[in-house]
């Protein structure tokens, strides 16, 4: 593949992800979200109350933040399994910083962010510079970072934080109308804007898709593959540190088991949101829709008193349903050819070529 092809591919990409970074799959997701909301509201009227929806956001901000950083990683064909462990390690470091240094909240959060960034850089170094497979690297660092967290946090959890530490995860802004908006929600919106600009409105974003579609071609075309990957994994770590800070504030405790199994929640959200695990596909809008669908399902079914184990079954079916719909869309896209839909056959063939 020469530079020419990539150039064409780039143009196609921009067509495939039109005006707002909203792809065809996203309309399917929007429909799925609507269906979810209708079903759970029928089961329990309490679900649609604004207070409930805002309260729900307190619990999805952490997962949502990391999903926004994970999506670009997966789009490049990578994965980061260590995010839950990074949350745990950041939380423990913040706890230690408080216990040993009595840092004010802002500085305490900085230690968490810094920890997350370091962890992310470590992943990036192995994936981008040493060219090790991301699955293996982050499987290893998942164990490594969790082990560090358990080791450092062995001397009992820290929970004697001053009240100022609880702002980030437990305080609310009151908006006109008397509604209470959790303080962490605007943070998610900020990161959402940033991720959207970076992925759908910048050269970096185009590099990300180019790498995901065909890494070798991207490299020949002059895309700084290693630097892009480094940046993505570092960002993923940084955001996991941020999620850790919010988590610590929300549960008022720094304990080494923070973020356990969180990587699975994050990957679920991304994959449900149409981010293709084989790379090259997905976007910010879909990821957020995936987050809203999972959260609404869990919250709504809890409100409807559906036992936890049955919720898992429903979630599993929804995920399978989404995966099936994506596959059908891809087949159709592949057959319909350039004149069929907005997204041309050219663009469809590239990601599926490896899968077939």
């Amino acid at each position, binding site marked *: 593949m020469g530079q020419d092809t990539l150039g064409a591919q780039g143009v196609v990409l921009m067509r495939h992800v039109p005006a707002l970074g909203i792809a065809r799959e996203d309309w399917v997701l929007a429909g799925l979200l609507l269906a979810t909301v209708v079903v759970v509201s029928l089961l*329990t009227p*309490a679900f649609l*109350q604004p*207070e*409930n929806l805002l*309260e729900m956001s*307190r*619990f999805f901000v952490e997962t949502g933040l990391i999903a926004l950083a994970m999506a670009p990683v997966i789009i490049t064909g990578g994965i980061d399994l260590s995010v839950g462990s990074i949350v745990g390690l950041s939380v423990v470091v913040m706890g230690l910083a408080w216990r040993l240094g009595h840092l004010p909240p802002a500085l305490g959060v900085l230690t968490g962010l810094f920890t997350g960034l370091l962890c992310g850089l470590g992943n990036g170094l192995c994936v981008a510079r040493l060219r090790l497979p991301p699955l293996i690297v982050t499987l290893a660092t998942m164990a490594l970072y969790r082990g560090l967290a358990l080791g450092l946090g062995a001397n009992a*959890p820290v*929970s004697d934080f001053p009240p100022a530490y*609880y702002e980030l995860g*437990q305080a609310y802004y009151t908006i006109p109308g008397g509604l209470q908006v959790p303080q962490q929600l605007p943070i998610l919106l900020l990161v959402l804007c940033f991720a959207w600009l970076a992925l759908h409105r910048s050269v970096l974003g185009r590099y990300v898709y180019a790498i995901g579609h065909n890494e070798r071609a991207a490299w020949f075309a002059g895309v700084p593959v290693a630097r892009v990957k480094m940046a993505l994994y570092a960002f993923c770590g940084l955001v996991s540190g941020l999620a850790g800070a919010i*988590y610590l504030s*929300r*549960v*008022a*405790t720094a*304990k080494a*088991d*923070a*973020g*356990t*199994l969180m990587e699975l929640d994050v990957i679920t959200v991304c994959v449900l949101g149409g981010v293709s695990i084989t790379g090259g596909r997905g976007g910010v809008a879909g990821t957020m829709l995936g987050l809203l669908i999972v959260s609404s399902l*869990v*919250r709504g079914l*809890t*409100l409807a*008193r559906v*036992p*936890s*184990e049955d919720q*898992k079954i429903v979630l599993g079916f929804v995920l399978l349903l989404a995966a099936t719909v994506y596959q059908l869309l891809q087949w159709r896209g592949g057959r319909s050819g350039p004149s069929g839909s907005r997204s041309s056959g050219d663009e469809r063939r590239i990601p599926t070529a490896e899968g077939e």
Partner: protein
Amino acid sequence: MPPTGTPEGTASAAKITVLMVPKLKGIDYFNACERGAREAAEALGNVELIFDGPVEDKADAQNQLIDGYIAQQVHVIAVSPNDPDSIAPVLKKARDRGIHVITWDADANPERSGREFFINQASAEAVGQALVDEMAAQKGPEARVAIVTSSLTAANQNAWIKAMKAHMAAKYPRMTLVCEPKPSEENQQLAFQVAQDLLKTYRDLDGVFAISSVAFPGAADAVQQAKLSGKVAVVGLATPKPMKQWVDAGTVKTVILWNPVDLGYATIQAARALVDGQLAPGTRTLAAGRLGNLTVVGDQVLLGPPMKFTAENIAQYDF
């Protein structure tokens, strides 16, 4: 239909909804708790019980679950917290919304969570006394004994050891601890070795207290393999089902634990009484249906003396 032992008027009171949250759903111990809770809800007739908890070992799962139920106005939240501190904010929030909060099986940080009562399945004193009395019954008041504990920093075990020593000093002054308590961590193999070493070092040892669910089988195994069953008594705390093989073999005569079915039953009784105002600060006794009157000390409801599982009854229990 007013159940026996419950004051008049309770049954006619409006139906309440109680959310009961175990540490983990689907394991034998908590299934037994749920059975007792359902029994109490049925006996009372005016309690709707929701028994739901985490299905995976995830730090945050209880918080999220409880927060969801706060929004739908349950009357009482009864939780066995995985962590006493990280559960506190969500319990505090429930209290602020006027929902009653009690803990059972394990306690939450009382100040920070604002929980009203802890249904305590066994006070340290009761456990300590039951262990020592059982040893005295098997080996006499002058027995020479040793303790195998979990880790030297385990809060529960240390409280029990303290109570055991106090009870020995008061009631069996001639019972001797041959050495300080030996740690076995959470490692059955280590417990086995520690017990083996004790048997070798102290040839005249009469009994071993093994006071964790890991130490107990380890110590029993060591005594059995040394062919000292019957000569050296093993007394300890564990759930009965895993101990059944040593009870059947005669190495262990008695397994001491509380009855989780009763714990669940008492929790629902307490929840109902709390809403009705019959359980309030200053209350001394709680009428708890078939369990009779339970003692209330401060903000703790005591389930009563621990239960003994022996060769006669151990087969009946599935936890």
